[in-house]
């Protein structure tokens, strides 16, 4: 299967390790992974901050870059939700743009959806001997309705102890530009989230979105808690060999 990796601009720029993990994981599972070099950004930041025109331009670019692939896999619930949920609202009904969006949208998957729904794998053969708690980010939870897909994958990782996160479904306070436009509320939400994480006694906080992890991780790091953040892909890519 010819799979295009949509790395997302945040991962590309700040978290290349997540992209490398997706590549190694998908190859391990027999996929032919391609990285269309012309890709940039889904446009979520612009659209959600009120800059629709720029966002629409980026959405058009996205549909051009990813046309013609069997599947487009993104290691981000938020960016996958942007494409799936918001793109159809950006184009005028009946327009060329709307047709391009309708063509690409059904092929876009968040990583855990792709593994479970397309590849039908719930045990990816990973090994990660650590105590982990999982934060279901809002857009993967309420946008994509990922449900228990990520935790099903994590439960099958050998050596991994998954501990439940109290108040898991509450937003961490990132919210894109919300984090800088409403810093006091964002920080208060982040502080409550980190308290819940610390209560679990986990060594690692895992999520399917590096943007949320950047906010929570930044808070955990500022508080010198010693808890690490890791993207789901990085844990699933871990094996006994690369530990």
């Amino acid at each position, binding site marked *: 299967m010819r799979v295009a990796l949509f*790395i997302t*601009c945040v991962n*590309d*720029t*700040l*978290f*290349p*390790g997540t*992209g*490398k993990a997706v590549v190694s994981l998908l190859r391990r599972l027999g996929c032919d992974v391609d*990285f269309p*070099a012309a*890709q*940039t*950004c889904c*446009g979520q*930041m*612009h*659209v*959600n*901050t*009120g*800059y*629709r025109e*720029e966002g629409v*331009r*980026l959405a058009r*670019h996205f549909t051009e870059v990813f046309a013609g692939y069997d599947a487009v896999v993104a290691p981000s619930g938020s960016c996958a939700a942007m494409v799936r949920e*918001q793109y159809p*609202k950006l184009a005028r009904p009946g327009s060329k743009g709307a047709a391009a969006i309708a063509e690409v949208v059904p092929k876009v998957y968040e990583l855990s959806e792709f593994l479970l729904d397309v590849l039908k794998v719930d045990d990816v053969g990973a090994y990660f001997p650590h105590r982990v708690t999982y934060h279901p980010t*809002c*857009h993967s939870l*309420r*946008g994509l309705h990922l449900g228990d897909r990520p935790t099903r994958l994590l439960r099958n990782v050998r050596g991994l102890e998954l501990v439940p996160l109290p108040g898991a*479904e*509450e*937003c961490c*306070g*990132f*919210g*894109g*530009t*919300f*984090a*800088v*436009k*409403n*810093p*006091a*509320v964002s*920080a*208060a*939400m*982040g*502080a409550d989230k980190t308290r819940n994480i610390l209560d679990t006694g986990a060594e690692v906080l895992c999520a399917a979105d590096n943007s949320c992890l950047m906010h929570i*991780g*930044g*808070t955990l*790091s*500022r508080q010198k808690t010693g808890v690490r953040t890791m993207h789901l892909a990085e844990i699933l890519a871990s094996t006994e060999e690369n530990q």
Partner: protein
Amino acid sequence: MSATFLGMPGNFPKNAAKAVQDSQLRYNLRKATHTIRGKRANVVGELPDWQELRAAGKAIKDHTLRNLDRYLVQLEAAVTRAGGTVHWARDAAEANAIVAGLVKATGETEVVKVKSMATQEIELNQALAAQGITAYETDLAELIVQLGDDFPSHILVPAIHRNRSEIREIFLEKMPKVPPNLTDDPPALAEAARLHLRERFLKSKVAISGANFMIAETGTLVVLESEGNGRMCLTLPETLISVVGIEKLLPSWRDLEVFLQLLPRSSTGERMNPYTSMWTGAVEGQDFHLVLLDNGRTDVLADEVGRQALRCIRCSACLNVCPVYERAGGHAYGSVYPGPIGAILTPQLRGMSSDLDASLPYASSLCGACYEVCPVAIDIPEVLVDLRAKAPHAAAERAGMKVAGWILNDHQRLARAQRAASRLRGLVPKRLPGPMSAWTDTRDIPEIPEESFRDWWERNERA
């Protein structure tokens, strides 16, 4: 309520920053919202057909809004036929003048009130006071707010920001004849309110209410409440004046079978609220007036995306699940409509010319919890994003977003920017200057990698 929201200074981020510092407020809000959240989830979970009810509720409201002119005329005819008088008000001033005129015609200078969002929105109490008419709020929470010379901070429970001991203090200070040994036990506080209002109910000649629903087909008005203050006001006085937003309409009697299931479970988290009163026109010799209020609603109706906000049945489920409301509190929104629904309703009703109103569409992390619990499926995040596109943007932000858009629209430009960032990676300070200090005040920034993913791919895979 002597205080007024109009002309409230500041903007949401500033107001919220202050509120976040108030640990008592945060404790009160957290406790109350989490209590009601749990209750709602239980009673909603009891109904196997909740999603079907929600779909019906949404469609009934959309259909009503599409045919609002026709149904309002039908309602007017039905109310008139049943002996009521219908008035129309384009805006707050017109509605207030109608109500003041009706009260004056009775010769009374005091009125009792049932909790109503519409009359708060038009600041009726202040308008009546200017005409020498005193309005007494009778809902317990409204009474707490009125006695405390305070602002409401929640749609359903305007005094949610107060806990029992604060309420006791307000009662001791402001309620004549209250026993000095009043405890902060909620039943004791409720008893004090009962005694305080009893006589007023029995002697009042004029009452003012809103309504939760109006039925076009029959001319019936419906008020849901808990305490019985609503029944007192709706039943005992000789004159009843109801001020109701034009969007509160339902086409047919049958439609109540949907909304009487959706509303109580979503609002107080009960299978049914203690009391619901329904009346059609003038009942048991009462003089009945209905004031139909526009006050910006037809502007909202004209917006294809934003009009869904008019489906709102004021249950406040969205406030109770909102992580932003929970920490910022209701006052930060500077409107009688706080929380997620307020963040989309207020800027549409009032416009976005003030700093405060322009900041409201951004008072959300877009987490989507509000949409999930909304009993009429208002896609609040969708409307927020749409309003953000219409909101005025600061010049510096606009310039920054333009540059970001330009870079992100071309992979080569993006790659060059990434390489530049990598070269500077050692130089990034722990605390950033300017607007990005909002990030680094409480959070570390991630380390910038030596190489972007795309450069790594280029080096390893294309070779």
